């Protein structure tokens, strides 16, 4: 009797099975957003807040109709970023040797004294609030980036990305110190009035 080869299994329907699975995963996939603005809430304190000079406070008020009032003046959201940079970078008392602001004695003394005070009302919409938060965070980021470029020749965001990257070959301890240094020079002092 002749030896017969085993008949080949028909693989034509393999594609159909794979398509079925593919469509299932296509339908169930939700590319989830996992990024956003990180903020830190202040702890509840019983003590009285320290007295701060009025010129060191940059008041931003967002009212119930989503109108923006900066230092008692109406402002468009697109101008807020520059206004915040001008305020933070002012260096009014001359103690800040890396500031490039106008050194206006009527505005903030030093970036580490300058406080941005954000107030909103209950009726304010969330999207307007996020837009304002975003612009204020952007102001800090721009100043930090500029300072990082001056000192270390790379942007602040790049330094932080390097710090988080496990494969980065450089000296992490030193990088951490550099990041802390910049954070010290432009501290994020964003207070929210309740």
């Amino acid at each position, binding site marked *: 009797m002749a030896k017969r080869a085993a008949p080949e299994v028909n*693989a*034509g329907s*393999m*594609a159909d099975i*794979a*398509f079925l*699975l*593919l469509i299932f*995963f*296509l339908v*169930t*996939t*939700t*590319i*989830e*957003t*996992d*990024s*956003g*603005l*990180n*903020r*830190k*809430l*202040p*702890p*509840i304190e019983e003590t009285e807040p320290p007295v701060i000079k009025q010129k060191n406070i940059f008041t931003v008020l*967002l009212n119930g109709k989503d109108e923006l009032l900066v230092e008692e003046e109406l402002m468009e*959201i*697109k101008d807020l970023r520059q206004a915040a940079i001008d305020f933070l970078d002012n260096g009014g008392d001359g103690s800040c040797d890396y500031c490039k602001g106008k050194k206006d004695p009527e505005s903030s003394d030093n970036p580490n004294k300058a406080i941005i005070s954000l107030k*909103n*009302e*209950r*009726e*304010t*919409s*969330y*999207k*307007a*609030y*996020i*837009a304002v*938060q*975003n*612009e204020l*965070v*952007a102001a800090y*980021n721009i100043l930090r980036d500029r300072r990082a470029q001056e000192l270390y020749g790379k942007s602040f965001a790049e330094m932080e990305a390097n710090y*988080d990257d496990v494969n980065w070959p450089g000296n992490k301890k030193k990088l951490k110190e550099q990041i802390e240094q910049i954070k010290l020079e432009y501290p994020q002092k964003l207070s929210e009035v*309740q």
Partner: protein
Amino acid sequence: MSKFKKKKSGALPAISTASLPDIVFMLLFFFMVATVMRQNTLKIQNNLPYADQVEKLDKKDLVMYIYAGKPSANYKQYGSEARIQLNDDFASVSDIASFIAEERASKREELIPFLTTALKVDSDANMGLIGDIKYELRKVNALKINYTTKKGSVDQNQ
């Protein structure tokens, strides 16, 4: 010479589809890897606002999600005011403290200081609700928060 002319025929040969499964499998694996199964079924509208100064939330297991927004079309009976959703159900502001305590209890003790609360809030919600949530979070000392946003210019918020 007729030996070499045997196979010649007029019709075009059919294109082989043998590699089709390979291509489909490639796509399949991509989607299998990229898929994140939704943890919670949303009962609210959740159209996140846009921002461009975003930071990525890493370590997914250290994130607690609080959703807020108007009840979606299927849950109209809950009214049209923005509501909070914790896990799979509507909740009130006073439930946040116990929710945080529950989440903390489920994590290892040394990880608790690194827990972040992600606020996934609909762009049309008002700040009164957010203010209440934030006050509750401060009361239970969960101070690290993240306003989850889509990546884009703030102009798109209007």
